[in-house]
């Protein structure tokens, strides 16, 4: 089974997210970058399937040239091929992103002479959270898609996909080639080994320059939600604070 995983490079903020002066992006001056968590799990799932059942894993990202870092990371944890669709670094809207990704996927499939059996997306990107790029790509390619997947069991000509619902799972049997939106928790992503890191330096980066028209959604300004004003009551600096804590638990009625 050959699997394509589409990932997004996002900043990794800590206690606060700061916005640049023009309001158009997260101020990442002092931040590291990472792969959006759902996609990190999608990649791990693809690598596990390829290790078990054979086939190759390709990681593709649309983003600034610096996103090569996330592609190399993908190679260090087991991806066989890495493809970058470079942007100028500005945030692309979902329609534009989906159009460019579709073209890139069509080109890769043409070069391979066959479609990817599975294309995995994160259920939503960690930053802009548009909840739609995977679905748009699936429809442009004429393939079925299901989101919120937390379990994949590959079969012959189809996959069993488990979707998380309140208190359990829905089970789908999706014919391949197909597109799935993956959620964190489907697995525990591995850390790269030293050998993986070395191999990733040698992985060949393919670049696909693709132009696409902006869609109808435009970003005007990012801002932080109003903070809830809070004062913290310090109950103590050692275990004797337990008495006050249990008083509070009694007061609010959670202690019978």
């Amino acid at each position: 089974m050959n699997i394509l995983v589409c990932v997004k490079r996002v900043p990794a903020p800590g206690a606060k997210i700061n916005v640049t002066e023009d309001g158009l992006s997260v101020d990442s001056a002092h931040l590291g970058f990472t792969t959006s968590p759902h996609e990190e799990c999608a990649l791990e799932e693809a690598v596990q399937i390829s290790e078990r059942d054979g086939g190759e894993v390709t990681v593709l990202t649309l983003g600034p040239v610096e996103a090569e870092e996330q592609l190399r990371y993908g190679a260090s944890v087991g991806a066989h091929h890495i493809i970058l669709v470079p942007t100028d670094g500005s945030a692309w809207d979902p329609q534009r992103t989906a159009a460019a990704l579709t073209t890139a996927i069509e080109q890769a499939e043409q070069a391979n002479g066959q479609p990817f059996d599975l294309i995995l997306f994160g259920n939503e990107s960690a930053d802009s959270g548009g909840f739609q790029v995977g679905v748009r790509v699936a429809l442009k390619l004429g393939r079925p898609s299901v989101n919120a997947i937390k379990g994949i069991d590959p079969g012959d000509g189809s996959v069993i996909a488990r979707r998380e619902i309140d208190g359990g799972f829905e089970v789908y049997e999706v014919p391949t080639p197909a597109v799935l939106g993956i959620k964190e928790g489907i697995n525990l992503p591995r850390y790269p080994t030293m050998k993986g890191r070395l191999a990733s330096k040698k992985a060949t980066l393919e670049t696909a320059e693709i132009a696409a028209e902006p869609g109808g959604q435009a970003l005007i300004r990012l801002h932080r939600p109003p903070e809830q004003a809070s004062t913290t009551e310090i109950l103590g600096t050692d275990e004797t604070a337990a008495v006050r804590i249990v008083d509070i638990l009694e007061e609010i009625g959670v202690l019978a």
Partner: protein
Amino acid sequence: MSLLVVLEHDRGKWVEANDEALTAARKLASDMGVELHAALVGVGARDLVSQAATGGAAVVHLCEHEVLTDYGPDAVGETVAQLVASINPSAITAVGTSRGNEVLAQLAARADLPFVANCMTVAPSDGPWSMTRVQWGGSLLEDATLDAPTKVLSFGHHSVVAEVADAPGAGEVREFAPALDPAMAATIVRDRDVQTAGVTLSTAPVVISGGRGVGSAEGFDQLEELAELLGGRVGCSRAVTNLGWRNHTDQVGQTGTRIAPEIYIATGISGAIQHWVGAMASKRILAINTDAEANMVTKADYAVIADLHKVVPAITAEIRRRQG
């Protein structure tokens, strides 16, 4: 002219998110000065017409087809796309649950329209609309514009407080039979695997979480013991999930579970913004941390600046002492 709200159901069972959807849609329809229509799709939908009317729908489009035996993103998405092509509403909305966002994404892709997910407020106008939407799971907000002949947008789940309609809508039922390719049955739910959960993380009255500061998987035993005494559930941070100490089902935060307990006890957790957005709906927060400057501490209602390995067993002992 109309606003179409796409409602959800679980094999004929009304879902709570519909009350939010109708609350947001009533206001939007009134701001737009148009009639509110609702779409109900698939087996069991017929039983919910009166609830949609009670929620203010003037017209309920009942969409049935033999392929629609249960939820399926392609089949439901195509059904809504055909309904939209037939009745031509000015805008289509839903609540941004997994299904709500998925169906609107399907609709938007099929109709080649933009789709703005998880809005908090929406200002309709004759030109492009303005909205404020959620980024980073709620840690950041985005002012955006939507320029399209037909507007497609969802409201963020839990960003609207459900209210009862002042007056019910007429609830006139219009049947709509989509033309669906039987191949769409491929992505209809085949089966369900329901787990008996008891109190879940999202409904527990008390949640006691541990972060990296807990130090090991075994370190969570003391949190389990306390949670049991309080009838609560144990949660954790992503650092803990990544270390393999706890299952992801216990993770609180942007990519985990959103909780809203009476009290949240966060031990050994620094309070990164992605953790905080999952915990901020808690009624009260108690942070136990060795670092007085930790974000979790400065944002909490109560804090103890000490080693959790001493404080947590002391709480358990104090409860046992009082219970005799």
